[in-house]
């Protein structure tokens, strides 16, 4: 299968290793990977701030680049939900509506792609550590992605998953929300971190690097004894 990889802006800039792990995983499974160089973003920051016209300028470009793709893999529940769920509403009543609706089912969040589309759960990974999983809200509630990451982690040798009580609670990132209401965002992050620390896990794992950027930023500042990793980074460990 020829996979088109859509790399979100923050993975490109801050977490290139996440994209690299995904390329490696997909190629090892025998799939060809292509990656359009632009656009660099799905447009969600503008969309969530209410600037839908400005969002469409980016989103049209995204859709044109992905128009021919057989399947699109997005290593983020948040950007995945933007394209799959919110593009159809964003373009409702415009000439691009049909394209948005047609594109949505061809796009997959990374873990959902492996499990639901390819039927793969065992990638031969080994990770002898105790981890807890953070469900990114968009992946969880817009894309119904509760099971795929857990199915993948269940097959990682020597990995011990301990669920935290606040696994489904928002970490407080929320895109521009984190900067508009930093005090609320920080308090939410603290609740999340405390819940993760309670489990005694060494790592918070997630399918969303944006949530992890917020949590790791807080962890570093407060010197908490826990680290964050994208699921893809675990799936390449041997």
């Amino acid at each position, binding site marked *: 299968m020829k996979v088109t990889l859509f790399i979100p802006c923050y993975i490109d800039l801050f977490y290139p290793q996440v994209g690299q792990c995904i390329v490696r995983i997909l190629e090892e499974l025998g799939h060809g990977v292509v990656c359009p*160089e632009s*656009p660099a973003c799905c447009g969600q920051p503008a969309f969530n701030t209410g600037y839908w016209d400005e969002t469409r300028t980016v989103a049209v470009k995204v859709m044109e680049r992905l128009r021919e793709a057989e399947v699109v893999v997005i290593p983020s529940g948040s950007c995945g939900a933007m394209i799959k769920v*919110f593009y159809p*509403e964003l373009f409702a009543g415009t000439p691009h509506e049909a394209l948005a609706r047609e594109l949505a089912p061809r796009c997959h969040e990374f873990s959902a792609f492996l499990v639901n589309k390819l039927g793969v759960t065992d990638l031969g990974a080994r990770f002898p550590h105790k981890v807890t999983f953070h469900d990114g809200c968009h992946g969880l509630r817009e894309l119904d992605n509760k099971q795929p990451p857990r199915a993948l982690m269940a097959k990682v040798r020597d990995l011990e998953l301990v669920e935290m009580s606040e696994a489904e609670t928002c970490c407080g990132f929320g895109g521009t929300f984190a900067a508009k209401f930093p005090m609320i965002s920080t308090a939410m992050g603290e609740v999340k971190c405390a819940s993760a620390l309670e489990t005694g896990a060494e790592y918070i794992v997630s399918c969303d690097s944006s949530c992890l950027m917020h949590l790791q*930023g807080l962890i570093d500042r407060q010197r908490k004894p826990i680290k964050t990793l994208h699921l893809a980074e675990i799936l390449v460990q041997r």
Partner: protein
Amino acid sequence: MSTAATQFKRDARRLTADLRHRHIIHSALSQYEVTRDEKKALFQDWQGARQLAAGIKWEAVNHLDRYVDQFVRGLEARGTRVHWARTGQQARDIVLGILKSRQARMVVKSKAMTTEEIHLNEAMEGAGYEVVESDLGEFIVQLRGEAPYHIVFPAMHLTRGEIRETFQRKLGGAPSDNPEALTMVARRVLRRKYIEADAGITGANFAIAETGMISITENEGNARLAAALPKTMITLLGLEKVLPRLEDLALFLPMLATVGAAQLISGYNTMYGGPRQPGEADGPEEFHVILLDHQRTAYLADAEQRDALHCIRCGACLNVCPIYRNVGGHTYGTTYSGPIGAVITPNLRNLQDWKHLSYASSLCGACSEACPVQIPLHHHLLRNRRNSTRQKPCWWQRTAFRGYALVANSCRGWGLVTRLGRFGQKFHGLILGSRLDPAYAWTKTRDLPPIAAQTFKEWWRRRGKTRA
């Protein structure tokens, strides 16, 4: 920034830093979640029940003219006086008019958020009436001069000790922190008030079109006393409370109890169909029902957000909202707090003055998932944001997003921004976390990761070249 927005940010800053407050709310609501889930599990098919409830509400709201008319005819047939109020002012005037004509001096109230919405207590007290809230939580916050903290649990932010202290200060005695002892103190005061009151004011949870009755759900029996003992009963309700059929309550009563208070069914569910009828032993001499519009018909005209009128004011969205849990109910500065408040307040009041409530959300969707009538609350927050920028864009934000679109759409632009960021980052340490820092909102409490020495796109390009 509007005054309301400034107040919201100030109070949010204070309360998110108040770890004691955060702990009280978190532990109370976490306990609620556990019990609620036990009750939810008793439904054969909870998701099916939600769908059914949403369908019934859709039917009612989309044929509101017909059902409200049927409801009113039923009420009037048994001698109830029905009043229509387009605005809060009209509703207040109607209540004051009734109280005056009945020569009332004292009013006892059962819990009604609609009366909070139109600030009825202030109006009645301003006109010289004594007003007593009879719901225990409302009674406590009234003694403290506070607004309800939560749609369903008005005093949930208070500890037993604080309640005892309030009773001691205002009622002159409270023996201990024991909840039963505290309840008995309130009960002794309230029992006398029911008997002395000239009028009882209630809200309504549901209005049944088929039978022309209002349905009130409560756990303390206080609404029954407020309705039965005074000579005049006044019920204020929003137009959207109507349900088509009596049998709809078979779904809505347990559903409201489950998500509202984590109960199987509430202590008292009572239907009121009119004043005392000939031959009946008790009930009020006069029964007045005031139907309040207060922007609800404007909401009805908005096909995109009309389903916000499905809300049954159960408070389920507040309970699961991580924003509400961290900033608390009073911070919202308006009657309806939490996600439902953030959705409807900008539309009921003024979009530009209250849009900050729609922005103060990470859009996590826990509210929509919890809503028993399937209102897509967090999607409506996005629509409010869109409407507010359409109506009045912020010039620098729009310019920034236009610039961002240009950069994001061009390989060269993105490459340039990457390099500029990498360069600027070298000096970031000098101003990190200070007011000069352009990323201050982030870096005040969090570290920012460095831009990678080789971004993904740079790696991908180089990889392509070496492979070719």
